[in-house]
């Protein structure tokens, strides 16, 4: 199988879209937080917690969408903690975020051991199955790539459209964007910067947790330690890559996922036989860095990102 065949195969693009889905959820979550002015480095831990919470809820008997809801609520809980420390208390967003990642990860592993003390390998659940959208899935190449995915993947794209709509087409979205640009402008219009930022961090963290839950409920059917494996950090880079815009961030997620899908397939080609596989593993990250350098130079960072807002201080 050579390079061109890979790029024109529906299976390759289907895989890229599947790999992109959790990234899309979590990137949107991070984007919402950063647009309001809060860098949420808790993302990696929140994804771990979301992956576990969604999975264990389904394992305990909830329906799959119930698992997604539990993950979302779990994320919102961690978001509440992050928001409380970083917004009204104005603590360093770096420290709060990294602390939250450590806390959420460890708490997840602890809970896992408490709930399932005796298992040696994690039990499986009945995960989301691909749902072929009638008519659309019959389109050659595009059909199998885009319209034969699991419902949670469709949800990721719907959410991206929804987030873009709210950010750019509603008064609430305008307030969120202004809170990340100039909190004093928001306060001068009689709105509460604290409420807007807290809301954004809580909802954004919920999205991150759903991104994690995609791994256990849709991509795989079980929970493993290290399953999130740095995806949270990738999403932070994707937000920059997307210049804080939902549409571009989704494209970035698909691009990264495509590199990831490509490297797996390249390992199985004739070049893969001679080149050490670690080089292929490195490829998506290397190309992401390159893309980041090229794409994000002129991006406009939210001006008040990581700047705590204290009413009345000059």
């Amino acid at each position, binding site marked *: 199988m050579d390079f061109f065949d890979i790029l024109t195969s529906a299976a390759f693009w289907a895989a890229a879209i599947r790999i992109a889905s959790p990234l899309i959820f979590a990137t949107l979550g991070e984007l919402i937080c950063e647009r309001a002015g809060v860098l949420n480095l808790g993302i990696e831990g929140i994804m771990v917690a979301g992956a576990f919470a969604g999975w264990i809820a389904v394992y305990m008997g909830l329906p799959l969408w119930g698992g997604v809801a539990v993950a979302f609520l779990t994320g919102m809980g961690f978001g509440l903690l992050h928001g409380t420390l970083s917004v009204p208390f104005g603590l360093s967003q770096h420290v709060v975020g990294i602390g939250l990642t450590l806390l959420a990860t460890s708490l997840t592993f602890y809970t896992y051991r408490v709930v399932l003390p005796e298992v040696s390998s994690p039990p499986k659940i009945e995960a989301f199955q691909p749902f072929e959208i009638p008519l659309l899935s019959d389109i050659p190449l595009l059909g199998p790539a885009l319209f034969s995915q699991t419902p949670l993947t469709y949800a990721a794209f719907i959410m991206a459209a929804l987030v873009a709509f709210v950010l*750019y087409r509603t*008064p609430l979205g305008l307030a969120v964007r202004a809170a990340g*640009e*100039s909190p*004093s402008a928001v*306060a*001068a219009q*009689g709105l509460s910067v604290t409420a807007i930022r807290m809301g954004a961090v809580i909802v954004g963290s919920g999205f991150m947790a759903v991104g994690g839950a995609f791994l256990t409920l849709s991509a795989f059917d079980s929970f493993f330690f290290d399953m999130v494996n740095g995806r949270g950090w990738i999403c932070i880079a994707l937000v920059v890559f997307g210049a804080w815009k939902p549409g571009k961030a989704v494209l970035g997620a698909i691009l990264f996922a495509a590199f990831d899908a490509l490297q797996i397939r390249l390992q199985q080609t004739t070049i893969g036989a001679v080149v050490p596989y670690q080089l292929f593993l490195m490829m998506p990250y290397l190309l992401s860095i390159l893309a980041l350098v090229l794409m994000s130079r002129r991006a406009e960072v939210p001006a008040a990102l990581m700047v705590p807002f204290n009413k*009345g201080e*000059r």
Partner: protein
Amino acid sequence: MSQKAQAQTVLRLSNITKRFGALTANDDVSFDLKRGEVIALLGENGAGKTTLMNIIFGQYTADTGAVEVFGQELPPGNPHAALDAGVGMVHQHFTLAGNLTVWENIVLGSQRLRSLRLDSKAAKAKIAGLAKRFHLVVDPEAKVGRLTVGERQRVEILKALYREARILILDEPTAVLTPQESDALFATLREAVGQGLSVVFISHKLHEVMAIADRTLVLRHGKLVAERAIGDTSREELAALMVGGKVSPPKIDAMPAGPALMRLTGVSTKGEGRAPGLQTVNLTLHAGQITGLAGVSGNGQKALSDLISGLVQPSAGGFEIAGAEVADWSPRRALSRGIGRIPEDRHHTGTIADFDLTENAVLETYAKDFARHGWMNWADAKARAESLIATYDVRCPGPDTRIRLLSGGNMQKLILGRVLETAPRIILANQPVRGLDIGAVNYVHGRLAEAREKGAAVLLISEDLDEIMTLSDVIHVISEGRLSPGFVRGTMRAEDLGQWMAGAGFAEAAHAS
């Protein structure tokens, strides 16, 4: 004006008192504002003007007293209520989001957050209507970050008008504007007042107050000390009321020029972006003289001050200090050759905002005078800061205060002290009194005059012709990087200098030489 006396009272403040710890920022202040009236609120920095306005707007809560708008008492500490009641405020430091467009900034907060649709069409139509009615030209689709300061202020005013403001509070609106932009602002305000708007205008520029206000209130140390109809007062009286005593600008007595301390012969420098560089400039600074540099900002003042500070090298021409040719020019060499610098931007270039007064006081000399074997001697540095605070009347809680908490005037006094303590031979004073109140202005001018008498050569760069003509022994005009010949004190009228500033005269001068 007589019908205004019977006009409706739109705003009434009764017995407002506000304390911050031991400081009483507002002490029992009461006044009324009528429909279609412009009140100027005068006072020195720290007199409590901004605090009072923030109380009206609900950003601060008064300890006692009440604010009534159109006969209704405002709930304290609630900007939303103030906006709804028709109070709009244009803050001194704009509250705009640079990455958002003009219309987005204006609409922000005016629609309910729960509503599902941002009605941009209706909003833009309303903005266009207001812009036309009040002659506030600005492109609604432009990003605010790309606008000039004057345009941003128009956006701020549009924002208030969009929220149906009937009372407009402007906090030092002209502090950052060029004279032309200020004139445009005043035209807009007159238009708005003609349509029934009432305005409270905070300023310490007396000529503006005389030009725009119907009535003026003078605040001093938080107290309302005087109220005057503009027809019944004068600039001199208002100045005296503000500072609580007679104001006397420093006297500059004629004295013979000393030896040339700095000489530029045919110096050119490279421009920076849109800012022009110097073009074959001839300039001599003499000991015991103040040389004034007049000109509209952005005409090469920065190039000249960067050259003298050591930030740029001349690309052509001769550059001598005290008779010796300068080579390998750098800020550190400039310091060691006895050049004292009062930079244009005291907040960004002159000081480090989050450093305390001690650290800022020794910024230029720490390595030479306050360190031994590479270790800082903080006790000496602190003693120096304390002596500057005492000698130069810097009002602050102490040398450990972060300098960002000081008012502009006090910050400038510290910078002035830092420069003068090193007994510089040449003093570069770039816009040394911009944004300062009368008391501080006279203080800074007095100290510069004193340095002149002691034999320093002072280069005074300013956009304010009054300032230049009062202080300077010799005046040069700069325009597009070209320097006019020097005009000795008393030989030039303001109109003639204005001609040179507009660029006339240079061609003939070039032709004649």
